[in-house]
């Protein structure tokens, strides 16, 4: 459903904002209970499971769910109205100004086809001129105006209980721009169904009128320069798709010649014009379906596919969102003594005795990153690891790093020490991936920095989340300058 995605986006924002007020430990416990031991394969699945569980918890009555239902109902209503509008318009045009006059096919074509097609072309041109979806002048502006108007309404209505709703709305609309392309594309896709319904309504009215009433067709114009040959050529081209494919709905020169009508004399150009005029309606039906319904349908399907593609990796869309969902993903991912590596950094001093569940670990210092023995022991204890082998990599010798990976040890885990100020570039990410491929074991990336909660850590988390590998975890390690991470010690 087109609006289910909008509901999902609303719910993600809403729930993450609710999370902000709760502690990390509390959230972790709560989510584990909710998930009931589910183990997602990737971040997107983790997000789906988390969202589903949180919705279940609220009895399915979430802000996004309600918005989705409301929009779907509104959409269905508008589609119904469009269908009726199309049928009504066609009826009015088919009956003509007087019951004694045949339907002017030119008026019908202009009102039901030329004008809607011009609108479609204009919209597409606007999109082309103004750039990609989400930057369409009309839609984007209307969208932002709509958001602003709702915000103002919510402020006005902010009394008593409604103030909670108003607050939530304002909080959500602040984050609304991050999904703008998805929202605009979804609305644009859904909006295509109104002209589709309009044309289908017109097609139904035409078919009904042709089959069950005594409609007669003709073409009539005061424009003397419009010769039957010209009109015939235009319709030959227009009707080619169905005429050449199915052999029906063809408009030949004889039909055009015979069905020219004069309102002044009230007569067809040829005496048998009225008899043969029935051949027009399949051509008109073909026009409505081929040029009215089909392009809009294709546009709607294309936009839906675009929305699906762009929403496939929601977790990675926005840095802020990624950072927040990182916690969510790790909270619901299979195991981990410290959810999301969000716990306190390793304390210095003597390490406590290892627990019986500790994993032997291969410690690799990347590009000169290193820790003092005491610091390393403390980090390992926190992660329930025990250092079994130490190596260095990333010092500019690619062949040496390859050899190290080829001779990868069989230890149960890897702790890759990196310096926070280093950029998590492609070489680093490739090395982490190679470590994961070299053995099915978790890789802990220990980001060594001088202070807790540094921006460096967020960047490392962000970039390594691009790997989409739940087996890679980023851990904060605070190291004092006099202790570790000195010049190329590894």
């Amino acid at each position, binding site marked *: 459903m087109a609006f289910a995605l909008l509901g999902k986006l609303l719910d993600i924002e809403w729930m993450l904002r609710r999370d902000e007020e709760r502690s990390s430990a509390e959230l972790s416990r709560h989510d584990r209970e909710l998930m009931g031991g589910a183990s997602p394969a990737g971040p997107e699945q983790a997000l789906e499971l988390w969202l589903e569980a949180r919705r279940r918890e609220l009895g399915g009555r979430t802000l996004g769910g309600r918005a989705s239902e409301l929009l779907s109902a509104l959409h269905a209503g508008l589609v119904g109205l469009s269908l009726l509008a199309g049928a009504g318009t066609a009826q009015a045009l088919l009956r003509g100004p007087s019951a004694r006059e045949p339907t002017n096919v030119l008026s019908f074509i202009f009102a039901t086809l030329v004008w809607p097609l011009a609108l479609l072309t204009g919209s597409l041109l606007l999109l082309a001129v103004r750039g990609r979806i989400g930057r369409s002048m009309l839609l984007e502006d209307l969208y932002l105006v709509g958001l602003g108007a709702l915000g103002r309404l919510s402020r006005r209505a902010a009394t008593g209980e409604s103030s909670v709703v108003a607050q939530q709305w304002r909080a959500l609309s602040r984050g609304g721009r991050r999904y703008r392309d998805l929202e605009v594309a979804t609305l644009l896709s859904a909006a295509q169904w109104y002209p589709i319904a309009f044309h289908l309504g017109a097609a139904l009215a035409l078919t009904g009128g042709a089959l069950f009433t005594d409609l007669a067709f003709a073409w009539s114009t005061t424009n003397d320069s419009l010769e039957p040959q010209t009109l015939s050529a235009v319709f030959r081209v227009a009707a080619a798709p169905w005429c050449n494919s199915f052999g029906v709905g063809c408009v030949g020169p004889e039909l055009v010649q015979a069905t020219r009508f004069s309102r002044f004399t009230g007569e067809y150009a040829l005496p048998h014009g009225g008899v043969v005029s029935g051949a027009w309606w399949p051509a008109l039906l073909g026009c409505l379906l081929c040029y009215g319904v089909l392009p809009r349908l294709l546009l709607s399907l294309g936009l839906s596919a675009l929305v699906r593609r762009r929403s496939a990796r929601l977790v990675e869309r926005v*840095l802020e969102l990624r950072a927040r969902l990182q916690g969510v993903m790790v909270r619901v991912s299979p195991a981990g003594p410290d959810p999301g590596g969000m716990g306190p950094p390793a304390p210095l001093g003597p390490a406590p005795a290892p627990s019986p569940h500790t994993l032997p670990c291969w410690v690799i210092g990347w590009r000169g990153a290193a820790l003092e023995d005491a610091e390393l022991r403390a980090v390992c204890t926190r992660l329930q690891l025990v250092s079994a082998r130490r190596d260095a990599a990333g010092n500019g010798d690619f062949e040496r790093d390859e050899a190290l990976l080829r001779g990868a040890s069989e230890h149960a885990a890897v702790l890759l020490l990196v310096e926070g*100020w280093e950029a998590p*570039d492609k070489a680093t990410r490739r090395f982490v991936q190679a470590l994961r491929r070299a053995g099915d074991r978790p890789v802990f990336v220990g980001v060594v920095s001088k202070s807790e909660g540094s921006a460096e850590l967020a960047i490392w988390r962000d970039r390594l989340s691009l790997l989409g590998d739940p087996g890679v975890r980023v851990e904060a390690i605070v190291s004092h300058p006099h202790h570790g991470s000195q010049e190329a010690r590894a």
Partner: protein
Amino acid sequence: MSPPVPPSLPVFTVVGRVNRGKSSIIATLAEEDSIAISPLPGTTRRATHYDVALDGQVLFRLIDTPGFEDAARALAWMQRDQPSADQRRARVAAFRQAFAGSGEFTEECELLGPVLDGAAILYVVDGGTPFRENIMAEVEILRWTGQPRMALVNRSTDSAHLAAWHAALAPAFSTVRNFDAHAASFRERLQLLALFRELVEGWRAPLGRAIERLGAEQARRLHESARAIAALLVAGVTHTIELSASPDGLNAEEQRAAEQRFQDDLRQLEQRSRRQVELFYRHHRVASRATPLERPAFSRDLFSERVWSSLGLSAGQLVAAYSVAGATAGGALDAVVGGASIFIGTVLGAALGGATAVWQLGARAVDITAVESIGERLLRSAGAQRRFRVGPHQHPNFPFVLLDRALLHHEAVRYRAHALNAASELALYDGGASRTRELPVATRQRVSKLVLRCRRSPRADHTETEAALAAIIRELLVQRDAALAP
């Protein structure tokens, strides 16, 4: 393959590891604050050229490039078959040909393109971080290209790692130079350009011309800024607004509203003038995000107590300035009577001027006076609306506060590196002390006199006064420039 002949236009490609400040260096050198600078690695994805041009003539070109992402692996590829020294450049070209458009080594191919096309290399390292051996893979690749190259140690202020960086880079680069993109002054930029001249023989003349023209441009900006500040002073001290009210006059609420509107107008005048100065120096994106209390004095509200207590002249200076002005006027009278008045005019003028200053210091800053013709007065009895004029601002310190703020703002803009615009708001360049309090007495007198002339007849043509003020301000700016020179 031999290195191509350098083109006549000096072209420099700025290369280095991701997140080492390449874009910041370009932003500062090219005075281009639209360049995306972000703490996130990989912000620059394509090689983009920035022309440093004046009056439509391109002086030199800088090319911003994505950072090295996997230099060690790229070098390993190039080192296969161990090409001899004369084949290395061709090997780098072959590498680019092999991987361009393949999706692999995207960044390396992108940054090597302009280098292989003949641009000189400016290799940027982060002096704030320790030297690490892995960086040498990048250095080796650049050495293999055979292009003229210079190393720039960015974020070099107060760094403990500079010696290690210089020692490591010196063998591979003709020059290794400290250059802090966020703190570099205009002079430092010109000094760096002078070093660029040494890289390629054929670029000596065009870069020499570029240095001359950029110097002249900086002088022109100072001149234009002085004119803009003088225009602000004149507009500020002559500004008035007119409004209509009922025959009973303005009530307290309406008076407050009128004063508020008047002050808002003055704020806008100041803002427009600042924008002008910022544009002279090509600062298009100067941000001001901090809360008002954290801002430097020139960035706080024009009418805040703190601004008026810290900027402009002190009370003593103001009384002295007005006394001298009064004494001068009285002295003129004494002169007219050939000294027969035994200098009573001078003494009385000084006393009168001083008293005026003391009275105005405590007086309300904005006057609201009725402006009515005789006809209007007659009509008042018939219930017609009355007209009032707000302003001009009479406080003796107002022009000096305005001037102080403009001078501080000008300094902050003139000495600001363009790379900072994306990251931080406009800050004081050199302390926040009042500049006007340090003015020589004679200069203060000249300013007071010119300002008084404008105030006396707000609606007159002040072109000459403005030009005289601009000359004084230009002199002040030039002196300040000389004082701040390293």
